[in-house]
């Protein structure tokens, strides 16, 4: 019997730790008929290092946010670009399929075996003040995280304040920043409802955040072909979908939590002036991404088209089945 050590971060109550890892762990144990057991371990490492932690076999598997390592996962930003208009479940499925079909060849996950790809729910505005038009954001101090956010912030005319994610509560509480762009889940997870009760949600989402789950190739070698294949059979698309759906559910719970605790959640419609303005302002971000990944020897335009079609098709299917 082999123990598969999964190093994880985020609070134990977070869906990633209360749902995603335990569910996958059960799948792995069933698929390998108990020969591999999964041990979930809270890590106090900087989450940005977890890619290396697994590559160097310090832990066997883990997950992280691609944007934590600027420069390494440029292609993976594909799913973060504004305008996808899908929830995390649809985005995650489309992202996984796009990765397998187009992105994998560029080998950005060098040294790792990817077992799942997913996104958090659409990014929303958490602010200390009500946002009635995009002009209200001009000149406001907004905490900017990594990835595509910097470009969006620039186009919105905000004063960007860069700070690690775990400082966001403090920044908002003291008033050093007036707002932050993060998914809805942080109203509850980081208790942003206490310090930034105004939430503005665009129908297309502001942007997405891409995460990856990965396992050490050395670990896969060490357990033999049969068990490695068994683990793969319960990972990939199946794991990505499950993770995306779990993160969506966390967003829904967080919205309810926020509203129960004095949060003002403003869901905008497609026709709303702010939604239209946002589309105008973010127009052309695709092109900057396409330019940035030119050297990667991947047909980025085709990948982007494929991703969006996949996401739309799955979204339509979700609507048909009444899931959303």
């Amino acid at each position, binding site marked *: 019997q082999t123990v598969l050590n999964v190093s994880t971060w985020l609070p134990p109550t977070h869906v990633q730790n209360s749902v995603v890892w335990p569910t996958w762990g059960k799948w792995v144990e069933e698929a390998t008929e108990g020969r591999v057991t999964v041990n979930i371990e809270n890590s106090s490492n900087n989450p940005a290092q977890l890619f290396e932690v697994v590559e160097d076999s310090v832990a066997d598997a883990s997950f992280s946010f691609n944007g934590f390592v600027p*420069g390494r996962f440029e292609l993976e930003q594909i799913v973060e670009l504004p305008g996808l208009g899908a929830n995390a479940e649809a985005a995650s499925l489309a992202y996984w399929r796009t990765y397998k079909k187009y992105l994998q060849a560029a080998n950005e996950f060098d040294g790792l075996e990817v077992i799942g790809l997913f996104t958090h729910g659409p990014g929303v505005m958490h602010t200390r003040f009500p946002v009635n038009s995009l002009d209200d954001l001009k000149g406001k101090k907004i905490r900017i995280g990594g990835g595509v956010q910097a470009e969006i912030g620039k186009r919105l005319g905000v004063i*960007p304040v860069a700070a690690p994610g775990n400082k966001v509560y403090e920044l908002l509480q003291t008033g050093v920043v007036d707002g932050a762009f993060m998914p809805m889940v942080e109203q509850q997870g980081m208790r942003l409802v206490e310090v930034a009760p105004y939430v503005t949600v665009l129908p297309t989402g502001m942007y997405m955040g891409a995460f990856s789950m990965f396992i050490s190739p050395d670990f896969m070698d060490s357990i033999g072909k049969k068990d490695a294949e068994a683990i793969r059979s319960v990972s990939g698309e199946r794991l990505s979908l499950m993770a995306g759906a779990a993160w969506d559910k966390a967003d829904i719970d967080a919205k309810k939590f926020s509203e129960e605790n004095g949060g003002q959640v403003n869901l905008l419609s497609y026709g709303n002036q702010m939604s239209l303005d946002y589309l105008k302002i973010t127009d052309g971000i695709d092109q900057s991404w396409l330019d940035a990944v030119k050297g990667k020897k991947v047909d980025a335009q085709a990948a982007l088209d494929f991703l969006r079609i996949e996401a739309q098709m799955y979204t339509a299917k979700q609507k048909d089945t009444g899931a959303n």
Partner: protein
Amino acid sequence: MSFISWLNANYEERGPMKWLAFFFELIAAATLFALMILTCVDVVGRYFLNHPLIGATELTEIGLAIVIFSVMPVVTWRGSHIVVDLIDAFIKNTYLRVLALVSSVVISSSLYFISFRIWDVGSRMLRRNITTEFLHIETGLIVQYIAVLSFVTGISALLYFLLSVFTQPNSGEEK
């Protein structure tokens, strides 16, 4: 006062080590000074001029690593690492000297071996073009700086210890 006499008055090290100690401390002092200015400029710019310094956070992180590791050789060869000295009152100075040798070997060898690994980690980052978020500074370079200074600390601490044992058999270590 001339620079040389200032150096002699302020550094207990001997010979070229004086210069080396001054050199390392100069890098650390200048960087720490810059860190202080950086924060002030960033805050003043953000609050009063609505224009923060882009990349202040990542420059702070880099500066911090430079401050800490630049003085590491000096701190280590002077034996300034913190010890729990509960036994000092009960044992003879000779034993303390032996124990200091043990410590020196432990410190030097751990830094020596780890420095190669840190160097490799840095090279890997450089190969993958990992940069900072806003200023696009190669992160691997900072990691390799840490590696080089760890290596220098390991080697110099052991040499310095041996030197002080063999050249000053009856002084140096005593308080």
